[in-house]
Each structure stands twice: as C-alpha cells, then as structure tokens.
C-alpha cells in the first residue's frame, strides 16, 4: 500500500473541497458523501493487497481533494467488479459503480490513456464497431494498443497455446458477427454521451 506524499513530512495535507465537489457531481457520485470511513469495503476487497489505496482510503483522499493521488492510484483499475463491497457497505454505496465512474472521469478529463485501460478501450472499440464482443478480437486490439504490431504478434505467440486450444474446442470465433442495428446502437450511444456533455 502506498504512503501518502507529504505524510509524516513537515507540511500537513491541506483540505480542498473542489475536487470532491467534481466527483460528487458524477453519475452516482453524491453517494460518496455518505461514506463514514468504516473500512468494510477495504477488508472485503479481494484485490486489497494489490491496491495502492483501498476504497476507503481513496474516498478519504477524494474528500481531502487529493486529485493527483486519487487518479494516480491503481485502485480503480484493480477492482474486479466482484460487488462484495457493494453488498456489504452499511451505507449502501454502489462502490463498484463509483470505481467505474472514476475510470471514466480519468480517461475523459485527464490522460485519455492509462496503461491499464487498454483492455477497456479495446472492448469499447469492438462494441462500437460490431455491437457485440468477440473475445479474440478484443484481445488482439488490446495487445495492439499495449505493444503495437510487434507487441501484438509477440503476445499472440505467447498466448498461442490457449488460443489454439479454445479454437480447437470451438470456443473462439475469429470473425464475430456484426449486429444489424449497429448504426442505431451507435446513434443511441452518441446521444447518451452527448446528453452528458461528452462526445467521442
């Protein structure tokens, strides 16, 4: 787990509520105000050991206005969406939804890319282009994003065994179908994004 910058140093952290207000304005973000820092999410999380900050710590950093630490942390990318925290949270906070929303916030307003977001972005591309997801296609896109053409080739070779096995067992479609109403789907997505003031 990460130690905070400035922790233990002479300079105390200065509370700044601006960032928190931005987060509260996100879809479902206002729930975060209810967090009482009990830490049930932290002890419930199966990925807690890998996280820079547990959800509880992340939320306290948001409240303190530590934007940099929050968005730098791997926490939101390490979440497996297992819903345990959501089920257990005594305040009924949809923590998992907040994690997703923070990923969205990150990609949209900060860096546009995150090393850990390649899979998500590949998934989204596939969805936009075909309307459905083909596992092979997503993985290939993902590896291309991560390592370019060479990287993708190397990675494909590395994963060859698994891929071939799946293929042999009839579990991989190399050319997945496109849905018929793809144009309509994309219009719906564009509209939904536009409603929130975003465009791709």
């Amino acid at each position, binding site marked *: 787990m990460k*130690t*905070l910058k*400035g*922790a*233990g140093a002479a300079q*105390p*952290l*200065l*509370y700044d*509520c601006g960032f*928190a207000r931005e987060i509260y304005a996100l879809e479902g973000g*206002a729930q975060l*105000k*209810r*967090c*009482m*820092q009990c830490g049930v999410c932290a002890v419930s999380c199966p990925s807690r050991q890998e996280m820079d900050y547990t959800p*509880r*710590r992340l939320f*306290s*950093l948001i*409240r*303190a206005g530590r934007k940099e630490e929050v968005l730098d942390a791997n926490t939101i990318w390490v979440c497996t969406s297992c819903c345990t925290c959501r089920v257990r949270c005594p*305040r009924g906070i949809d923590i998992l939804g907040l994690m997703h929303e923070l990923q969205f916030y990150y990609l949209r307003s900060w860096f546009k890319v995150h090393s850990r977001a390649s899979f998500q972005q590949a998934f989204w591309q596939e969805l936009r282009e075909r309307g459905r997801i083909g596992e092979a296609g997503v993985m290939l896109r993902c590896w291309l994003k991560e390592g370019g053409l060479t990287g993708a080739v190397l990675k494909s070779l590395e994963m060859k065994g698994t891929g071939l096995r799946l293929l042999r067992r009839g579990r991989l479609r190399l050319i997945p179908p496109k849905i018929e109403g793809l144009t309509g789907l994309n219009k719906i997505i564009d509209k939904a994004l536009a409603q929130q003031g975003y465009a791709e």
Partner: protein
Amino acid sequence: MAAKIGVYLCSGCGIGEVLDPAGLLQVAEDDRRVALVRESDFFCGQDAGLIQGDVTDRVVDAVVLAACSPRFYVKVFDYGPGLPVVRVNLREQVAWCHESGSEDTQMLAEDALRMALARAGGSAVPEPFRLENPSRAILVVGGGLAGLTAALEAARAAYRVILVERENSLGGWLRNVYRCAPLRPPYAESAENPFHLLSREVESHPGIVVYRGASIERTAGGPGQFDVTVRQGERLLKERVGSIIVATGAGAYDPAKLTRLKNLAYGTSPNIIVSSKFEELALRGGGRVARPSDGREVRRAAFIQCAGSRDPEHLPYCSAACCVETLKQAQYLLEPDPDCTVFIYYRDLRANGQYEHFYKKVQEEGAVFIQGEVVHVADRGGSLSVEADDLSLGCRSRVEGLDLVVLATGMIPDVAGGGPEQGALKLDYRQGPELPALKYGFPDSHFICFPYETRRTGIYAAGSVREPMDLVTTLEDAAGAALKAIQCVEMTARGQAVHPRALDVSYPEFNMSRCTQCKRCTEECPFGAINEDAGSNPLPQITRCRRCGTCLGACPERIVSFKDYSVALISSMIKAIEVPDGDEEKLRVLVFACENDAYPALDLAGAAGLKYNAWVRIIPLRCLGSLNPVWIADAMSRGIDGVLLMGCRQGEDYQCHFINGSELARTRIMNVSETLDRMGLEAGRIKMVEVEIIDYTKIPAILDGFADELAALGPNPLKGF
C-alpha cells in the same frame, strides 16, 4: 408454622431415571410434619389438579414440591398468598448434573428434600406491610425536557403530580436552544424546539401542580409517605407524595477549564467558541449565525468534538449527546446555504440509535467528517485554521480559511442544582441527604437491569441527571421513570416490594428487646432504609426496604427476621443435612448461592448437562449480603467440610442486584476466618467466588476445584462431635 406438609415427588423430566423414589419417600415419612406424600411424573401438567385439590381441601398447609427448579412453572405451582410452596430442585441441580443410580446422588436428593422440609416447617405466612393512607401523588423535581415529559406521562395516567422547578420558567436547558435534533421517525429532520408546547401543556394540566422558582428544603419518610417541604421564596409548603422523579438535568462543562487544553486555543480568539455559545448565536439570529468578532455570516466552520470529553484530565466520559448536537448545528449552516463548508473533527462519531439516520442526512448535506485528534487551532487575523492528526488520511492534515471554530463540550450532572451528591432532595435519611453516586456524580443504579432505580427506593432518576443522554433517550427515560414511579406507589399501597423482589410481601421484623444499638444494620443497608432514633435504635422504614436481607446478615444479635427467611430457618436447613463420618471419605460442601445470578447459573449448568461432584448442598440466599456468619459456624460445627459462597461481581461495575451484597459478604467471611482459626480450622474451608449467569460453564470447575482443595485439607476435625 406449617404442621401439615404435603410432599409431592415428581419423577418426570429424567428425575425418575436417576433417583430411587423409595429413598425419598422414606425421608418424607420420617418427618412428623408431613401429612401426605404423592408421586407423579407430571405435576406441572395432567396431575396439577392433585396438589390444588389437597390445598383446596385443606389437607395440607404447605407444599414441598420435589421437581424442577423454583425458577420454572411459578404460576402453575402458585396456590395464593397464604400457602407456602417450597421447591426441591431435583431436576436441574440433581438429576441433570449427577450420575444416575449412584449412592451419592441419592444422598444429595434426600438431603435436598430434608432441607426443604426444614424450610417449609419453619416458615410462617408473610402478611403484607400496608400503610394506613398511602399517597399516590408523584413529585417531579426539575422542569426540563425530562421533568416535563415525566410529569405529563404520570398526569395522563391520572396520577396527581407536583412539579418543582428551580427557575422562574419551565424548559430547562431547552430554553437556550434554537432547534432540536430529530425527535421522531424517520430521525432525519431536525425538530422544532418542543419546550413551549410542553410547558404550556404542563401548566394547563389540571392534575399537575407547578412550583416555579422553588427548591426542596427537606424530604422525609419513604415510598407512599414522602413528606416533602418545598420552599418558594419565603413560603414553605408541605406536600405528601408516594414517589419521586429526579430530573434535574445536566449543565455544560465549564468552558473556562478548556483554556487548559492548549491545542484548542480556547480563549485566544472570539471566533473559537463552545457549542452552547453557538446555539445562543443561532437562537439570537433566528438560525443565522454571525461571527462574534465582526458579525459576518459564517461560510466556513469547523466543529471539534470531545472538547474536554473522554479526557482523564477533564470529563473522562462520553456525554452521548454532543455528536448529535453538532450534527444539528452543522445543519444550521448547511441548510440555508449548501455551499457553506463545514468540517467536523471527531474521535468516534456517536450518533446513537436512530440518530444514525440523522448522521447520514448531514453527511449527504455535505459536511466533511474528519476522524482524528486536533493538534492545533489558530487564528491569524480573523482566518482560523485547524491542524489534526487525520486518521482517515493517515497523516497530518490542515484546514484553512475558517470563519468559526466550535468546540463541542460535554455535560455534567445537575451542577446548578447542587448535583445529586449535594442532595437536591435534602433527604432526611440516616445515611445522608444525597442520592448515592457511583461515578462522576451520576446516581448509582444497577444500570443494566434497573436503570431508573436509585439507591433510594421510590426515587427515580430520569434524563441527563441519570447519565448523559440525547433528547430521544431523554423522552424515553422520562416515560420509563414515570412508569417506575407509578409502579412504586401502587406496589407500596399493596405492601409489596418494588424491584428486584417485586411482589414480595415479606419484610424484615426487628426484635428490639435484644438490640444492642450496634448500628450495623443502619449503616450497611444499601438503600438507607433504616433510620435511627436519638438512642441509636434502628427505625426501619419498611416501604423503603427492598427485602434483600442485608440487615439480617449484619445483625450479630440475630434480631432481624422475615416470616419466611431468617437466621434460625437457614440454620435449621443446615442442620437437616446428614453428614457422614469422616472415615466414609464423603465430603460435604455447603454452597450459599445468590438467588439472582449464581442460582440460575447452577440451573443452567444442569440444563446443559454439565456434571459436578455430588458432595454439594445448595442453599439459595436472597442476596449474599444476607449471609449471617452464624451459618458458617453452624455448618462447621455440624462437620461440613467447607462452605462456598457464590455471589455477584463486586466493584465499580458490580452486578449485585442489591448494590453491595457480595462485597459485604466478603468482609463478613474475612472476620469469620479469625474465628475459624480459633476453632482450629483452616481458613481455606471458606471460599467466595463471583459467578455471573453466563458463567454456568465454569460451574463444574468451581465446585470440583473447591472439593479438591477440601480433600487436600482432609476431613473437618469437628465431624461426629
């Protein structure tokens, strides 16, 4: 005294499989007082009519029922006040915890029956102590939220109420409060201050007499006949009441003492204030809070919880209400202006009970809660800052640009009224004018089981004078105390004891001709029930008595006795135990078990099927405080090898139902040890243990351990004399 005892031997619930009924029959037949013996395996069911029939036909005048524990089927085996029922606990304390068919188990059962016969034969039928003209009026002292509520509750139940308020107007603490924390479901919205409505209702209620600007000069007598002298200005008024509710409330912790807390910087800036000051500002501004220094509106504020609370140097306890009050005050700022920024520094946010909803609401309104210890508050030219060891961030943190810092201070019980120690009631009791306190000046009570009871029977504490509490709890507390006060006047009128021996009509009688004026009874009575005359003679006030028998245990001359509980009676039970010769290698251990916790624990051990040695002979006592050392001498001279006292936990968090019974018992046996020495007996033959009801699993270890210790000492040398 019973002359026609009916003995009923039950063989149900496994008793029949363990014991030989012939032996028990023989014991009963050997006793001349036994008029008849019946056997069944279902006295609590289909054969219940058998006993009732014998009682109705007046064949018997006392029932000895050898079956289950006296704690069960009390209603089934109740034949009215004139007919004593003595239960022999063959089920929980013999059949379920000892070897089946063994000679020792059989001897245990037979001894238990003999002891019960002795008890039944020696008991008289108690006559209730009735006052001639008991008062049913209720006195309420204090006109704050608790007092007003209690007065109304009692008056609505058609009891005459006399309310005495020190100030010239009613309302108490609430008179200086703008709005109140939520008082009803869903506990999310703050409530209008209820004191106007309440005081109007009290003043206009025909059943309530209100004395404002009044104090109590003297309280004499006891439940059903308290004679209270009220001073109102120059006037002295006399009132007779049946019971008293003390609701004198609490005061705020002295802010001046906060200056000793350097980190909070109280006193260094006009904008660092205590919560009562904040409330005053809100009240004056009609909800708008202006900065004391320049009257500017407050846009950024910090509240600091536990200012001088939970601090051994100041108030060591939690005042239970400050967190909720702060939540409410934060709302004063947040509701009119959601852009206002409020920081709340807390150690543990204690929004008890339903106030959790309120906490959540204020969170949603945007207050920022910071858990940690405040290390530094400073005012730089009107802009305040707070620095804290922030627990949620795990480092030092700082908030700047604050307009106001509010320190949430705790409460101390009834300062202005003199506190219960100084005696707001000015009791005319031999043990002093005050309500005895346990800690921090709050009145002593068995606060888990009987929270409203004080150590003065018929006097009930309610609201924050009893313990620090929030408003909702106060309302509940006031209603609870009103019910207790009503219960007290009614039961007193019937000559019954109030808790914990509720409904008991027996009471101690003093054979004054043998009294030596040693004052032990008047000093040791935990409830101050015995006054003294000028010649140091005890003057028992029976309606104050809780029937624990502490006086009976205290009296060296054995002049105190109840109709069905006395030194002689218990002695006769001890003498009923058959003690085998020393060479038989059968130990005999006498156990005095407190009826309230230890005896149920013994029952539970039996119900759980735990096994222990069959040497023990158990006598339940009303309280270990009623243990008279004579019994130990009796037991020893009978050749019994050891005596074990099983009582409740003592000390600061005591569990004794009668405050200090087990403590008194310990002192008494320490004195007895010297006597034992003189008799040439080892002090190790007497032992005292503290047992709670949940300790039942430890019972075998306690009893077998003591038996082993006694075996090591060898047989009692007095056996056979």
